[in-house]
């Protein structure tokens, strides 16, 4: 069953690399005089990611359960360092999102999503399902701190993914609905304050609602993405030719890679991508469920496993929805397609975690069978 995941993953990556190359070669030449600069960098990250995935898939999930408090503390610590120390951080386009260690950069927010999911699962496994909000304050505090620092960077997109996944997990473990609702209302108030606190975020909402109002100003980005997608038509304009017809897109090889794909390979290419993603999410879910069959009552594995699937699924949905203009503009990577080291690495680790659940469920059921014999 696990090999199915490898096959699907390999297909998505191969598909993505083709599009990445076509989206990044001109930028590669312009910035580094090397058309395959981004491709090679991404390949290295894919190799590192694959290795990490294989390692993680061999670590017993219970290890993560044991280390969950330390993990989430570490995540907050990283985010905090990023917040207070300009010396160790890297600021790009007004957002301080990257930790700098020598020539290596890393995005702690990518790690935070993983840590928060692990911690949430750990918390529910340990304390059970709380009936009142008061009983889960410690969990809310930990998740809230992570979300808070991410929003401060500012990284609205990652924050949204984190909060969405957390709410989904609360609903799954059957936290009373009225509690979730009241928390949601509080979140709404915070979000309102957050969005209206900066004109740049407010403009993004405006641009989303009506990009045409100022199509050379704030609506430019939104329209540009949609133009590229619409230009692609049914069969696309051909690989590497997007810029020729529509012009270079902002964040062409990372957040906007979907628009490049849609333009160059057309609706046919989009449908293929969707099929790949559907297969990936579905097979991950079935793998998780199959392993839990063998290991009944494993709350941690169930919640954490679903959480990992949700992280990937929500990223896919948010990114594509943003690209086609269904959601307001925010920078999120498209799993296994976008250029970017930390995100790619973490997506691999998240899949590795689900593989680990499957592997160790088999081990334990084999053990049980042996005892029975």
């Amino acid at each position, binding site marked *: 069953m696990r090999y199915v995941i490898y096959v699907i993953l390999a297909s998505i990556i191969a598909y993505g690399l083709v599009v990445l190359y076509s989206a990044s070669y001109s930028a590669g030449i312009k910035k580094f005089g090397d058309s395959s600069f981004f491709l090679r960098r991404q390949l290295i990250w894919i190799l590192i990611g694959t290795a990490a995935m294989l390692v993680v898939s061999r670590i017993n999930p219970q290890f993560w359960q044991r280390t969950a408090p330390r993990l989430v503390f570490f995540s907050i610590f990283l985010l905090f360092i990023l917040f207070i120390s300009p010396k160790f951080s890297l600021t790009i386009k007004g957002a301080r999102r990257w930790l700098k260690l020598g020539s290596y950069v890393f995005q702690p927010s990518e790690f935070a999503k993983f840590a928060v999911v692990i911690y949430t699962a750990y918390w529910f496994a340990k304390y059970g399902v709380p009936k009142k909000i008061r009983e889960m304050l410690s969990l809310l505090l930990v998740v809230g701190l992570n979300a808070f620092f991410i929003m401060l960077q500012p990284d609205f997109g990652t924050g949204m993914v984190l909060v969405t996944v957390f709410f989904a997990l609360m609903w799954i473990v059957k936290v009373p609905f009225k509690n979730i609702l009241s928390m949601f209302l509080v979140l709404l108030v915070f979000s309102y304050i957050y969005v209206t606190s900066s004109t740049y975020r407010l403009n993004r909402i405006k641009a989303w609602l009506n990009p045409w109002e100022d199509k050379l100003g704030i609506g430019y980005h939104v329209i540009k993405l949609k133009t590229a997608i619409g230009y692609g038509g049914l069969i696309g304009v051909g690989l590497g030719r997007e810029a020729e017809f529509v*012009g270079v897109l902002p964040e062409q090889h990372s957040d906007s890679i979907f628009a490049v794909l849609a333009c160059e390979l057309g609706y046919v290419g989009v449908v293929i991508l969707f099929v790949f993603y559907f297969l990936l999410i579905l097979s991950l*879910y079935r793998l998780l469920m199959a392993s839990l069959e063998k290991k009944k009552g494993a709350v941690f594995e169930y919640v954490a496993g*679903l959480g990992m699937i949700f992280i990937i699924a929500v990223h896919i949905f948010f990114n594509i929805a943003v690209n086609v203009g269904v959601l307001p503009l925010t920078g999120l990577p498209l799993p296994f397609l976008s250029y970017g080291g930390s995100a790619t690495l973490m997506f691999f680790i998240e899949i590795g975690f689900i593989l680990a659940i499957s592997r160790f469920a088999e081990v334990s059921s084999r053990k049980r069978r042996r005892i029975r014999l």
Partner: protein
Amino acid sequence: MELRGKLLLFVWFAAMIGVLIYTGKVQIFEHKFWVERAKEERIRGSSYSIPRGKIFDRNGLILAYSAERFSVFADPVLVKKPEYVALRLSQMFKLDEKKLLKKLTDKNRRFVWIKRAITKEEKDKLKALKLKGIFFKKEYKRIYPFGTVGRQIIGSVGVDNIGFLDNRGLFGLEKKWNKYLEGVVNFKGRETGLACDVYTTLDIKVQQVAEEVLKRAYEKWRQKAAYVVVLNPSFEVVAAASWPMPENEKECFLPKKMRAGCFFNVFEPGSVVKPLIFKWALEKGVVRKSDRFYCPGYIYVVPGKYKISCYSTHNWIDAEDVITYSCNVGAIKIALKLGKQELYSLFRRLGFGEKTSLDFVGEEDGILRDIKKWNVVSVASVAIGQEFAVTAIQMIRALMSLFSNGEIASPNITKMIVARDGKVIKEENKKYERVFTPDMGIVHDAMERVVERGTGKRARIKGLTIYGKTGTAQKAGPKGYEKGKYVVSFFGYVKEMGLGFYVVVDEPRGKGISGGKVAAAMFANIVRRLYEDKEYRVLSVNVPKKEEEEVFYKIPDFKGKTIFDVVKRLTGRDTKLIVHGSGVRVVKQKPQAGSEFGATLEVWVK
């Protein structure tokens, strides 16, 4: 718990399907809108263009050039008093006022075309009105000074990828060399096109005459298709006309009419192949000039079974006269002496069954069956030009080997492509291959007699030496050869002009159809008209030097020159000539020499 997980996943799937459907709507149903929008932005943006390259004929006459025009667009957000603006614009350009007003008040858009390609005078008039929100963009309109003449070869243009007018080749050379011809458009640092000039081997005058003759032939013969290809011994295409052809500017955008049939349509050529086989037989020593054949009017290829008949009973006939009178029996006897191996190798050398590598937007292969599939009947059929199919360009290329010292080469239409800085980017470089030995005496004599007293008498023109051969091939239908359906043809080489003409008429209607009757007469029509024009002679392709290019844009001093020189200089421009007085010599001109060409040029003659 598990149910809830499944449910959430289902919600995700549903949301994804929603996004997928939405993407489909954007990509498929709104596709046209976004393409238009992208073009608008490119034009509105910092992009500019310089005119597309020119296309010349072999005598330096301009076949296609791009003239400066202005296109008017509006930014509805900036337009004030749209009713007034709409009124003025509609008066000026005879546009629908209501539609215009709707465009001008569409505040969602910041770019709407009002009218494309207006002249400088119109632009100045409009500019004087000082309307707010109305802008101009320089664009170029493609002009074909000879109208529809040669358009199947020259081609047509449309709006380009960026959105500029008339800068994308749609047919013919415009399409073939679009990469070189394309006017330079700078869009976000990406330059398209090189705006090179293309010098062709076409002679627009020959082309014009050929097309007229084809048109007139249609009135008489109502043919399904017809082709005239004119080649010189260097295998340069001097003219290539095909019926059906475009008869007005609108039809120059119809693929049906713009198809150059002479490169694409295949047919069985008939007897025109006989001189080629005859020459081969002479060379291989299987036939000598003194040989005689007996023609009873028919020949059994398979005794008692398969009979091929002759046009008439020729009785004892000289080897040469087999060509002169197009004797099938004689030709078949010669072919049988050669054998299928020799025939096949000749046909391969002549390039039947494969593309001629013509520099055009494609051509057909023709049909030559593999030698393994040949039988006795095939040898006989092939000898009289049946059972294999050629394009007109293939056939004339093969025949021209008899007039280029026995050598053959790929035909070409483009002589050279010259960049804006005068550098030659591409130049035709011919590789000749030997097919025959250069001694053509006997074949030429035979072909000359075809016109003097043989099947091609109608092609005779006093004062010209013409080597010809007729062809009348039956057309194959689903059930073998059909009665009354013919492809008739005539090949003629005019020594004094140094040109080979190949005229093909597919399915002419009428009685007593033959190559000698239909095609030879058409050949004579073309050649006579060219011959009567004493000035006519085929020059080598004339490439103006850089300095002359400059002169091209300036009015020369016409004083003392004849009115014909003036007309010649005006070809390829939309400058109107106004002549005062009567006579031939120019005594005065306006504007003065050295200034640029304008809308009119006035000359006074004496």
